[in-house]
């Protein structure tokens, strides 16, 4: 069905008309400027040279030269997640595009708005296995919200406009525009450009039906044991949605838990904050999810990391699910009411419908929660068994939080134990301050994401809480931060293990640590210095605060190599295949084996 799409008259030709003598590359740059793009994260190559030539000397868009295309995509994600604006990526054909795929897939899983421009071989060479040719459209088809191959410069303006619309509205996500080299050089053909983005084609539903809202508010107001279970959708809906969540919570008094992606939407210092839920969530959050009678899921998607064993997931609750993506509703957990709409809009509708109602007395429910809280599930031993003299990683994150929270830092992470410890022990008060790879779980995300966030917030304190294994996955981006004088801080919790792998091997494979030891590590302090960064090593607990302060006092980028206990586990934990009520806490006995059904779960 690969028919050419016939050109249709464009009622209001946008840039295409005035730019009829402009090359495709010039139209592209013009359109990016019209979209308000400040930064393009990219890496040049043969198939994008015409675009790079257009960017040469152009003061209106700043190009950030990364060291690897994966870094470009993650940096754009960091920029997007921290600013709420779309991140723009520019890479060449073939390896340029394939290197960016991990970042594109990451943005797809976490609903991050990206517009990724990829060069392609000239149209005449497509399909001939030309040099640096890859089927970018085919490869990115299932990790993008939409993608385009543009075959005529006349179609560029409308395509770019629609790409930005699709990336940033509805459930946000990455959009790829593949532009062959000859299309970058040629001027638009005589025929009129395409008309895109008709309402039949793309019209996300943002407002929920009024009768649903009334019923939902009624359920919440009459619930004895209500809970808000919030996710990244609230962050994506903009800061106003977080404010509205706080307002509705204040009206109803219901306790709040959040997914990894939703941290910051509700302040961690609030008495009704239960902490994160799920596999490494708090005991009180998971118990409250299990025991609630009305669950209000707002912008979360019942991920397997959140639900634990599905047949034991919150068995006695009525469930309301608010999501802008209809396909998220009833995907894994059947709900009693699915509300399709933008989280912010629906929250505003609910607040409106709540009116002057009085909140029900939830004293009994809160007392039960207080009982679960009393377990102090985040308590951890003062000393490690294996390395009694070493810093406990949880302590390091707690001190980092204590010494930085007044500066309202932006925290990025890599993936693994350190990520979970950051989520558990670093309290977040505001949205857009917590950037992590939740869905795809991409090691190597944190450093480039910190670079993107720092560009979006030049005066903010941006810290990548990292592990010594993850940080090596995009370590080359140290050079990017040096080049643009970005004062990002990388705080490595160095336990010389791929800690989460090691932990699972301890729990599941009788501590057979197959390939999870981080052998032949670089000297991170010297590595930092080699890139023009400051390097600090912390080995003793008594030096922890001083090391963190030295990191904060240094005006430029810093790597802190914080040596921590090797055997610390990330707890509490719902082991795979277990229910919310079967959490493993510090001090629980571990037999180190698991049956095959549980092993087979991710």
């Amino acid at each position, binding site marked *: *069905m*690969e*028919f*050419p*799409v*016939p050109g*249709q008259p464009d009622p209001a030709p946008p840039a295409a008309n005035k730019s009829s003598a402009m090359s495709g590359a010039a139209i592209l740059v013009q359109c990016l400027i019209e979209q308000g793009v400040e930064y393009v994260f990219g890496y040049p190559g043969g198939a994008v040279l015409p675009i790079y030539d257009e960017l040469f000397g152009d003061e209106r868009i700043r190009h950030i030269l990364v060291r690897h295309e994966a870094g470009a995509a993650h940096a754009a994600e960091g920029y997007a997640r921290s600013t709420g604006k779309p991140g723009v990526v520019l890479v060449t054909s073939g390896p340029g595009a394939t290197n960016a795929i991990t970042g594109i897939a990451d943005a797809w899983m976490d609903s991050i708005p990206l517009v990724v421009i990829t060069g392609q071989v000239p149209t005449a060479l497509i399909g001939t296995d030309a040099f640096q040719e890859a089927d970018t*459209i*085919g490869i990115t*088809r*299932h990790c993008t*919200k*939409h*993608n385009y*191959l543009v075959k005529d410069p006349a179609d560029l303006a409308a395509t770019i406009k629609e790409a930005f619309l*699709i990336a940033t509205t509805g459930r946000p996500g990455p959009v790829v525009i593949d532009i062959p080299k000859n299309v970058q050089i040629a001027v638009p053909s005589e025929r009129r450009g395409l008309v895109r983005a008709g309402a*039949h*084609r*793309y019209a996300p539903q943002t407002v929920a039906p009024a009768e649903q809202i009334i019923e939902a508010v009624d359920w919440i107001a009459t619930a004895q044991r209500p809970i808000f279970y919030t996710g990244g959708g609230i962050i994506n809906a903009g800061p106003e949605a977080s404010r509205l969540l706080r307002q509705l919570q204040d009206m109803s008094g219901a306790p709040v838990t959040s997914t990894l992606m939703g941290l910051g939407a509700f302040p961690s210092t609030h008495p009704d904050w239960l902490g994160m839920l799920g596999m490494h969530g708090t005991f009180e959050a998971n118990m409250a999810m299990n025991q609630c009678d009305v669950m209000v899921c707002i912008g979360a998607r019942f991920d397997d990391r959140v639900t634990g064993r599905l047949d034991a997931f919150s068995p006695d609750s009525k469930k309301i699910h608010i999501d802008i*993506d*209809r*396909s998220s*509703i*009833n*995907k894994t957990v*059947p709900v009693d009411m699915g509300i399709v709409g933008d989280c912010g809009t629906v929250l505003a509708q609910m607040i409106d419908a709540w009116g002057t109602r009085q909140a029900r007395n939830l004293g009994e429910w809160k007392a039960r929660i207080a009982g679960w809280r009393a377990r102090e599930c985040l308590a951890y031993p003062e000393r490690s068994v294996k390395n009694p003299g070493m810093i406990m990683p949880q302590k390091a994150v707690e001190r980092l939080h204590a010494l930085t929270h007044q500066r309202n830092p932006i925290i990025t992470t890599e993936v693994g134990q350190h990520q979970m410890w950051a989520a558990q022990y670093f309290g977040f008060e505001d949205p857009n301050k917590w950037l992590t790879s939740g869905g795809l779980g991409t090691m190597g995300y944190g450093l480039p994401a910190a670079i993107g966030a720092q560009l979006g917030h030049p005066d903010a304190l941006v810290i990548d809480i990292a592990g010594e294994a993850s940080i090596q996955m995009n370590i080359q981006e140290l050079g990017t931060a040096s080049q643009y004088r970005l004062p990002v801080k990388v705080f490595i919790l160095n336990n010389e293990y791929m800690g989460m792998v090691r932990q699972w091997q301890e729990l599941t494979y009788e501590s057979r640590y197959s390939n999870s030891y981080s052998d032949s590590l670089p000297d991170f302090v010297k590595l930092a210095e080699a890139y023009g960064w400051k390097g600090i090593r912390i080995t003793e607990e008594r030096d922890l605060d001083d090391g963190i302060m030295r990191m904060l006092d240094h005006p430029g980028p810093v790597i802190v190599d914080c040596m921590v206990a090797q055997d610390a586990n990330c707890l509490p934990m719902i082991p795979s295949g277990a229910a919310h009520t079967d959490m493993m806490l510090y001090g629980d006995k571990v037999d180190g084996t698991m049956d*095959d*059904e549980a092993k*087979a779960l991710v």
Partner: protein
Amino acid sequence: MPMKIAEAASERHVLAVTVDNEPGILAKITGLFTARGYNIDSLTVADITEDHAVSRITIVTNGPPRVIDQIEAQLERLVPVHKVTDLTTAGPHVERELALIKVTGTGEKRVEALRLADIFRARPVDTTTGSFIFEITGPPEKVDSFIALMRELGLVEVGRTGIVGMMRGAQAV
């Protein structure tokens, strides 16, 4: 006890999907089915508007009810998809399929093939002294039955279009 792979019970659904007729849309849809582990029993596609801008895709799929609901939601999520109609749940509908069936043989079997074709209102569209190509149109079960009979009478080749479906009554999808 060694672990076994479990399977769930499924039901058959016919989906009518209207889409922008643009490059890659078919790959998007079929790829979505493979990527998410859904089944395609049959798929037909052709453009249906005068300006060739819109195509109608008819997909016969099977799965548990919740999976069918997911399939519809995931299809609706694709930007070029205008509308997804589940004909199976939307009410009474007509399903038709066209098949070309080549049968070779002589003597009694050849006569019997022609006689059965007449009963099934299958039309010979090509004839040699040793073969027929029959064209048959109908619901898939009718086509199945005819092919099963021809199997005994010298069937050598089958081509089927897959199903197109439409709601009964005046209402359009």
